[in-house]
């Protein structure tokens, strides 16, 4: 490590600038190739014949594998959020509003992000490893030599399965975390059940729900694309598969947080804009 820093310093400004430039180019190239891959996958979704059997198998695998972890983490996170907000609200004597506050946060942020990260770890890594191993053991080449296109046969079912499941599991996760919130509020914070629900419905907006859902869909696209890309393009050897999994976890997680940030920023900007327009018109 020390050597590398010394090397960098000794090379002078232009060399280092050059390296940064190349690094940027590499990032752009990386993003570009993944976008191209996504495009190829999307095109082939409509290709006949559609691998319905494969899709069902993948839906089952992805769904079943993630169900446990989404349930458990959903429930507990729901509870945690309730506790955190609960104590704060309590200080203002506003415990009753707990239902609304927690749900809003869960719907918009925690729910989608949490489920997405869970699925990245469980499914993303699994798909990257499975396809990576197939690539490395020449099974994908063997498929091509049978006169078949690996994208519609292998990638599309997995891609669609991840998309659909991220979506469904997010909804499921939200419901579970609601349950966690309710249970925790009732037993630990002594919030009345009906108050919780009433305020939940009052303070939760359709917008929050929709934003959460749309976000989960976008996360799904990122996870599916990255996992399939890394596996499909894995380099030879055990190292290659390991790296494919590693890249999937890192890139997908980063993408999720970045997208989350951007969406949140966009929403708030739009909101503020909308409010000021309404205000101006009102005036």
């Amino acid at each position, binding site marked *: 490590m020390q050597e590398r820093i010394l090397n960098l310093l000794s090379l002078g400004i232009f060399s280092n600038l050059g390296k940064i430039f190349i690094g940027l180019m590499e990032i752009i190239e990386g993003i570009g190739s993944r976008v191209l891959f996504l495009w190829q996958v999307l095109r082939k979704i409509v290709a006949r014949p559609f691998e319905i059997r494969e899709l069902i198998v993948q839906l089952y695998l992805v769904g079943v594998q993630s169900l446990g972890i989404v349930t458990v983490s959903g429930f507990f996170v729901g509870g945690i959020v309730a506790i955190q907000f609960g104590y704060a609200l309590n200080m203002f004597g506003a415990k009753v509003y707990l239902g609304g506050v927690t749900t809003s946060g869960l719907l918009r942020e925690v729910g989608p992000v949490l489920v997405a990260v869970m699925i990245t770890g469980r499914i993303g890594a699994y798909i990257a490893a499975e396809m990576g191993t197939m690539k490395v053991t*020449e099974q994908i*080449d063997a498929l091509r*030599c*049978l006169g*078949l296109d690996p994208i519609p046969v292998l990638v599309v079912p997995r891609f669609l399965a991840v998309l659909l499941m991220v979506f469904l599991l997010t909804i499921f996760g939200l419901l579970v975390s609601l349950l966690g919130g309710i249970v925790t509020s009732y037993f630990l914070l002594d919030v009345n059940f009906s108050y919780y629900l009433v305020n939940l419905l009052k303070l939760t907006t359709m917008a929050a729900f929709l934003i959460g859902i749309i976000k989960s869909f976008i996360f799904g696209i990122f996870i599916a694309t990255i996992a399939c890309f890394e596996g499909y393009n894995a380099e030879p050897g055990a190292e290659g598969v390991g790296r494919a999994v590693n890249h999937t976890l890192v890139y997908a997680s980063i993408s999720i947080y970045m997208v989350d940030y951007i969406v949140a920023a966009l929403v708030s900007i739009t909101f503020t804009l909308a409010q000021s327009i309404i205000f101006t018109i009102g005036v």
Partner: protein
Amino acid sequence: MIEFKNLYKKFGEQPVINNLSLLIEDGEIFFILGITGAGKTVLIRMLVGLLKPDRGEIWLDGKRVDRMSEEELKELRRKCGLIFQSPTLFDSLTIFENIAFGMRRHFSFSESEISARVNGLLELVHLDRELSKKFPEELSYGQQKRVSLARAIALEPKYLLYDEPTTGLDPFTSRQISSLILELRQKLSLTSIVVSHDLESMRMVSDRVGLLHDGDFAVIAKPNEFEQSGNPFLRRFLEAS
């Protein structure tokens, strides 16, 4: 009919295929001998479009292979099957599903037809029907190799390319595979290319043999003439076996 014209392919510094030309007749079994890394595998991979030559032309049945799109290559690969050195079976599928895989997507057979065909194919490669429910990992290496053969034949190809079919097998199993290659050629009217360094197999199956050395064929002859050849590299090869 298969034709290679003035092929050139380079990986890194040295050319692996250097101005190679060859015509393969229909119904022939052409055997390609050479040391590891000589380019034997590269040649057959170029024939099915997995690799593209740097220069030269590849023709199969009057069509130019090296200029084909991925879409056009699909039909070529059905007609000209490449059987890899390692079995490359799909490990999450049963033997039955492995063999039926290509069949289901290229042809529109009913389930019962597929079943009948898979059983027929297993018989053709001398494997027991019982194996169809098993998974690749439960089969021996030799058995897996036969399944990968069956999987390729399921597409009713005209040409079969065997990449080191007997490498890694014990002497008796090797012989069985070699006779299977002959049997299949006869029963299915195939044109075959066998890439290998197994001399016994060469003696058993080949109509013509080519020694690949330094990117081109140093010798091409019928098996008995081949062994009489005075080519120095060939002599070294034969003596070492």
